[in-house]
């Protein structure tokens, strides 16, 4: 099992993901530079947090055109597990792997705090280690995390059980309290909170461990 961690110019949580996977869980990782296309030997891909391509134009908008992500889209289509954290979630929506968009927080503040979340694992393979309706706490750190989608799509996502993570106290104005979404086949998960920052007892909170550990299961 090797996790490929995408590295864009401006990514800043790539090393956090590496530490969480390797240092905390013993899962080997490999950095995937945004210009490379080789996913050989990679069993799962993480798109980390940060500011890919400076977040120019819109968050995640330019990353969509990187050679690496062309391969990641094909990887996801083959059922490969793909996890988008924070900026990675923004990239997944720009790519069209998940519906909707992430926009500026309701009150414009950059939020950096713990967030309580309700987990609805459904068929999401990243969330198999969590109970249905379980409450967990993960850190959030974003200025543009307000999930936005039209009412019809939101209703469909809820009906299909794809709203995998919800804020218990909505911090940013996201419609439907959406903090994370799964795709219908359950191999793609995008979320604004940072599970990789909740894997080491030293920094407090271990609720993110089961998410990455799901790859071992």
């Amino acid at each position, binding site marked *: 099992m090797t996790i490929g961690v995408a590295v864009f110019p401006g990514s800043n949580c790539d090393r956090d993901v590496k530490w969480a996977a390797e240092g905390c869980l013993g899962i080997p990782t490999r950095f995937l530079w945004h210009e490379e296309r080789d996913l050989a030997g990679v069993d799962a891909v993480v798109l980390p947090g940060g500011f890919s391509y400076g977040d120019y*134009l*819109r968050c995640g*908008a330019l990353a969509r055109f990187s050679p690496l992500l062309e391969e990641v889209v094909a990887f996801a289509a083959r059922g490969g597990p793909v996890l988008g954290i924070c900026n990675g979630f923004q990239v997944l*929506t*720009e790519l069209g792997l998940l*519906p*909707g*968009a992430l*926009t*500026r*927080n*309701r*009150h*414009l503040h950059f939020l950096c705090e713990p967030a309580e979340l309700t987990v609805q694992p459904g068929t999401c393979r990243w969330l198999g280690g969590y109970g249905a309706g379980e409450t967990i706490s993960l850190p959030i750190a974003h200025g543009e995390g*307000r999930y*936005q*989608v*039209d009412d019809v799509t939101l209703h469909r996502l809820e009906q299909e059980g794809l709203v995998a993570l919800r804020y218990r106290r909505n911090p940013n*104005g996201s419609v439907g309290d959406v903090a994370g979404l799964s795709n219908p086949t359950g191999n793609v998960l995008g979320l604004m909170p940072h599970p990789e920052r909740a894997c080491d007892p030293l920094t407090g909170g271990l609720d993110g461990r089961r998410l990455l550990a799901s790859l071992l299961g």
Partner: protein
Amino acid sequence: MRLAGLARFNNRDAPPVPRFHARVLVRLRPSVLDPAGEASMAAAKRLGVEGLASLRIGKAIELEIEAPDADAARSRLELLSERLLANPVIENWTLEMLDPATSTAP
């Protein structure tokens, strides 16, 4: 000597490729909250500007493009607007061709 991408340089007899000027305006859809606009509106009130009923912030993108004719330029810019400059989930866009002779903008 040939220089890639410089058709005019490589063939001085070729007719000049017309260059068109355009502006794409990207606006948040009316249903999407604009916190930056609201914050600016609050600042406008503190500045003492009265009567302001609405303030929403978008983007203006100014472009120059070489194309055989205005229709070709327009269709390339429409593709660019729809696929890159705007995110149709949250934004609307309009394209203005700015050259007087070719402008068909509303």
